[in-house]
């Protein structure tokens, strides 16, 4: 399976038209919640059975995202990476996507170590109910996004509380993101965006 996630920045008054147009292309669309950072006004999430299906619909998606109702979009198309689901039926939770760009020169084993540590987060932070870490095939927007780190929480408290405050995050994982740490390799420009889709998308 493949997905495309787009973090859409809207022109004033365009939410209805843009949401409807993306929805007509079979995206799940929701307004972002307060507290996102470079996260846009809408999240549009598409699933595809294969890459050809994505290529077929991409011109129509580009027409919407390149239209007058959109001022900017950060997008990542990816094959589904490592994932887990503790709550596959989660219907009222919060979806969060982190787009990151591991753009500093590192070896493959170092990148593998980063990814291996990232996917251990749900083990230490059970508030992460469903999750997926994927390498990006095609990126658009402010950076050449290399990874999408998606999670679903039962509520926003899980994201703002346990996820942010657990030491496995700030005292272990964050060194890859921190220019003060020798292991730093990820651009400080991130997209941190979240919304409530009204259904689980990581287990769809």
């Amino acid at each position, binding site marked *: 399976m493949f997905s495309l996630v787009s973090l859409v920045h809207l022109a004033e008054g365009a939410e209805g038209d843009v949401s409807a147009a993306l929805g007509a292309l079979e995206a799940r669309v929701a307004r972002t919640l307060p507290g996102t950072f470079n996260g846009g006004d809408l999240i549009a999430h598409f699933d595809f059975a294969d890459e050809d299906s994505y290529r077929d619909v991409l011109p129509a998606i580009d027409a919407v995202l390149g239209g007058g109702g959109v001022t900017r979009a950060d997008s990542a198309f990816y094959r589904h990476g490592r994932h887990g689901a503790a709550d596959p039926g989660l219907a009222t939770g919060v979806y969060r996507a982190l787009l990151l760009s591991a753009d500093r020169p590192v070896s493959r084993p170092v990148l593998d170590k980063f990814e291996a540590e990232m996917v251990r987060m749900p083990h230490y932070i059970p508030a992460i109910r469903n999750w997926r870490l994927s390498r990006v095939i095609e990126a658009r927007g402010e950076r050449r996004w290399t990874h999408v780190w998606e999670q679903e929480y039962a509520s926003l408290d899980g994201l703002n*509380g*346990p996820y942010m*405050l*657990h030491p496995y995050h*700030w*005292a272990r994982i964050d060194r890859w993101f921190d*220019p*003060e740490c*020798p292991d730093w390799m990820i651009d*400080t420009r991130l997209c941190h965006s979240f919304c409530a889709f009204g259904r689980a998308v990581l287990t769809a």
Partner: protein
Amino acid sequence: MSTATTIYVIDEIVALPGKGRALLEAYHERYAPGARARGMALDRVLVSPPMWLDDDSNTITISWTIQGAPAWWGMSFQSRNDPGVADWWAEVDEMIVRRSRHFATAESDIAEICNV
């Protein structure tokens, strides 16, 4: 919640032979003021061996404290959005063999810091 737990930010720096003293002076003069402004308090500075070596490496361990994970994020957010901080580390890299930065608490605070 863990807002009051003391977190230690520990830099361990192995200086190039003969550069330990100059490196630590630069750290005090050019790095420490900004670190304090970002909310860290200098805990201690240890130099090993306790003399300045001319022809070998000193290992310098600098420990800072900050109170709780939210304050840690506040410090880190300021640091990563100030290009001068990354520039500082890049500039002094020529005086460094290797370095590490670790984040720690007292053993007795582990349960509290994990209670999120």
